[in-house]
């Protein structure tokens, strides 16, 4: 199968429908702009993507990455979407033989913002592994999305791909959506995906209150614990603290 047929340059509307949660918000945005990254065989490439409040943050923020992960190479991306009316982090990954892709994503937001991850992981060769963990915390009328597609081509035996999404809604009116899409054409593979949505554990909050922890702090601690899952695979303390701080600052500022 040629590369062109796996990631078509001119997709049809039907092919692409899965990846547009809020198509009207993308009006006027150039959808052909991608950052291309080639990771050489055996190499490791790490990237941290942060969309946070800043003087030059636009109302629509797009980050698009198209990555080819060479044989035996490793790609790690940890990202947070915490600003812009509409923020999207879109990642396409093409996995070489025995390669690994690790992604941890966080979306936070209130009002009527939409913040989302759109990923497409193409297991194009055998024995590659991928692990994606996304945590979304929203309030007001905010929305968090994780649209994740995993394609396993016919010869990509021994693929091991996992997708895990959890949403935490702090207000009635907030929402999260998970759209997993798995297309598997090989027969000896493991593909797992899970999605849950919940609210803060009020029993835990009462337990914390009974020990003297005020409500704002118990919420902060529980949110921190919740989004911490997305950063488990990150072995850089400074980066972890930075991403956590961006998320918690947003929460503190708006709640």
């Amino acid at each position, binding site marked *: 199968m040629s590369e062109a047929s796996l990631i078509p340059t001119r997709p049809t509307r039907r092919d692409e429908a899965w990846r547009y949660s809020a198509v009207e918000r993308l009006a006027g945005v150039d959808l052909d702009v991608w950052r291309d990254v080639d990771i050489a065989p055996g190499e490791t490439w790490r990237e941290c993507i942060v969309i946070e409040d800043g003087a030059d943050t636009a109302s629509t923020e797009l980050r698009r990455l198209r990555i080819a992960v060479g044989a035996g190479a490793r790609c790690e991306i940890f990202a947070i979407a915490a600003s812009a009316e509409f923020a999207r982090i879109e990642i396409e990954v093409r996995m070489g033989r025995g390669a690994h892709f690790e992604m941890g994503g966080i979306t936070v937001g209130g009002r009527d913002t939409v913040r989302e991850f759109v990923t497409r992981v193409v297991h194009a060769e055998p024995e590659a592994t991928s692990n994606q963990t996304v945590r979304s915390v929203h309030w007001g009328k905010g929305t968090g999305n994780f649209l994740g597609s995993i394609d396993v081509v016919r010869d990509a035996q021994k693929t091991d791909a996992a997708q895990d999404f959890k949403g935490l809604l702090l207000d009635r009116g907030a929402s999260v959506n998970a759209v997993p899409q798995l297309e598997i054409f090989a027969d000896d593979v493991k593909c797992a995906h899970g999605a849950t949505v919940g609210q803060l554990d*009020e029993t*835990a909050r*009462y337990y914390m209150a009974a020990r*003297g922890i*005020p409500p704002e702090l118990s919420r902060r601690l529980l949110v921190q614990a919740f989004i911490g899952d997305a950063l488990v695979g990150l072995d850089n303390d400074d980066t972890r603290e930075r991403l956590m701080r961006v998320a918690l600052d947003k929460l503190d500022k708006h709640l």
Partner: protein
Amino acid sequence: MLQIENLSAEIGGTKILDGLSLSVGAGEVHAIMGPNGAGKSTLAYVLGGRPGYEVTGGSVRFDGKDLLEMEPHERAAAGLFLGFQYPVEIPGVSNVQFLREALNAQRKHRGEEPLSGGEFLKLAKEKAALLKLDMDMLKRHVNVGFSGGEKKRAEMVQMGILDPAFAVLDETDSGLDIDSLRVVGDGINAIMRKPGKGVLLITHYQRLLQVVQPDYVHILSQGRIVKTGSADLANQLEADGYDKVMAA
């Protein structure tokens, strides 16, 4: 220290406490015993301010202040500790982080300086040793994967660290084996048997009361105190059962 007067409370419209009065002075340990459904845990939760427990009458004063007016976290900062019958698991939050945040939140509320990381760990180590709980347990997430007995020991470590003026302990002895019961009982004595402190010990069995000897024993039935006596009342209950003792 704690004056409960004519307290009535309900859950979801069902009356559980019905005119309960009780006074605990400084330096005293009071035990509350009673048949299932008498309202023992409800009393504990009402004192702790748990949402869903509605006070419909009466008053509770704690060191002269109106306890029922305070938020749950304010009650803790004022010196009230509620030992849970079923301690809650909090995945993702370590015991050390939880307790340090709790202690410093209480100190802040009282206008005291926060404890540094080093000072806190020293205190935590000391209290964990008192309850014979491995310090590694405190690095794990709050109560996650703990056995029933470990949870109860961890509760007492929490009490040791927070050093409350008054403790309401709701069936702290349930789920403990004989050796753990002794350790937990000794822990309660070490932490709370001090002048100026008070304890309300809710229990089904007099075994804990052999270690933590109460000054008074009350029998709670149908939402009110129906009999009060000395420590010997617990022995009578053990021998004769509630019906006979309450009828006497």
